[in-house]
């Protein structure tokens, strides 16, 4: 009520300000902290009082936490929040690489994955990817031993926002996007026959 020398914002504005500050703050704020951030002449306790009334009975409440204030979801709605505590972790590097190989080379056998990665694939990695429902068993390969193959699932495509595995960027595009640092031989064509070109007859290193 006591309008100071300079115009303090109108009460409604002060209430909005306190509301925004409390909402965005990572920790409860004391009256002192509020005053420090509000324009000169604001009456934080009064704004808090008005705010508390406004949020009465809402899904969110203005709560006193020690000598500070914070918004908290209403206790009776806690049952809705239980799903919040799903803990998400980054997939391990081994799992990401295995998944990438399945996606790019499917259907692919375990032996082929190991050949590309250059290390053996732990059982847990495959199991984890199958549990996530990102890969599944494909048809058996019609080669000796009839090994099982792996392919990616619909859930995989959904998670990564792909229409089909064909939408994965190719090597050239990866390189164009700066994801591949090296510049391999043109087109990285691995054909053995054409590999040694004319110039390859350069003499071997001179002996010392």
């Amino acid at each position, binding site marked *: 009520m006591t309008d100071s020398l300079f115009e303090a914002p109108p009460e409604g504005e002060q209430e909005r300000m306190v509301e925004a500050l409390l909402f965005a703050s990572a*920790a409860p704020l004391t009256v002192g902290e509020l005053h420090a951030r509000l324009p000169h002449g604001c009456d934080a306790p009064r704004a808090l009082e008005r705010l508390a009334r406004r949020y009465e009975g809402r899904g969110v409440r203005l709560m006193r936490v020690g000598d500070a204030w914070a918004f908290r979801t209403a206790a009776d709605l806690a049952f809705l929040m239980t799903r919040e505590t799903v803990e998400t972790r980054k997939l391990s590097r081994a799992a990401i690489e295995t998944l990438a190989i399945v996606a790019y080379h499917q259907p692919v056998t375990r032996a082929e994955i190991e050949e590309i990665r250059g290390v053996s694939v732990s059982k847990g990695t495959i199991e984890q990817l199958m549990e996530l429902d990102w890969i599944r068993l494909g048809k058996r390969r019609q080669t000796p031993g009839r090994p099982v193959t792996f392919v990616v699932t619909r859930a995989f495509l959904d998670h990564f926002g792909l229409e089909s595995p064909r939408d994965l960027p190719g090597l050239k595009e990866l390189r164009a996007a700066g994801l591949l640092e090296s510049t391999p031989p043109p087109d990285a064509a691995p054909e053995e026959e054409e590999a040694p070109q004319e110039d390859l007859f350069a003499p071997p290193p001179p002996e010392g």
Partner: protein
Amino acid sequence: MADDDFPEGPARDALSVADRLAAEALIVDVDGFEGPLDLLLTLARRQKVDLRAISVLQLARQYLLFVERARQLRLELAADYLVMAAWLAFLKSRLLLPPDPEEEVSAEDLAAHLAFQLERLEAMRKAAAQLMARDQLGRDVFARGQPEERGHTRRVTYTASLLDLMQGYARLRTREDFRPFVMDRVDVFTMEEALARLRPLMGATVEWTDLVAFLPEEWRGHPKRRRSATASTFAATLELAKRGGLELRQDDMFGPIRIRARA
């Protein structure tokens, strides 16, 4: 359009001087430009007209002048600046000549497209500025500072982004690119082999003898094998010559190389 934009006499000289000064100012920070289109846009703005009313002819002249000056100062210009210069020179000449009814695309069309490109680039610049001027999350607008996580069901789920996937794959492929290089030795006759073959033969070689005669029989047929054997045998003769065991001569360019034992 072409004629109007080509001032004559003193006016033209005055313009050139202005252009020269402008070009000099630009050269100082040529690195500040993001490609020829960016440079063209900057030059176009100097005309102080709506981009739709730009004189492409004048623009081409300014650009060419710029490139010319940069060359005089021996500044290295990236290839795409020179490609653009060549194209603009071509466009300029076409604009100055009477239209050729045979040409499918008129010079005016080409000029119009260039003006369109400049206008579009400038529009995107403005759009980008407008975008960045918006209230941004974490700067002007804020999310809940204290997200609430309650309850007791703890379920671990794993996540990865498409970028992770692509980077993972890129990593694998890159590693392959870098696998230690192993020479395919099937068709390679090594210098060691050549030396081993030459040494016992040299003692008997008193006359000048063509190098080719020393190639092993089975390495003469296939061109690839023949090249390898020739190269390594030649290298081996150099090595032996260095040690004083033999002499080499080649009478004319690309002529046969002949060797004999040193007396």
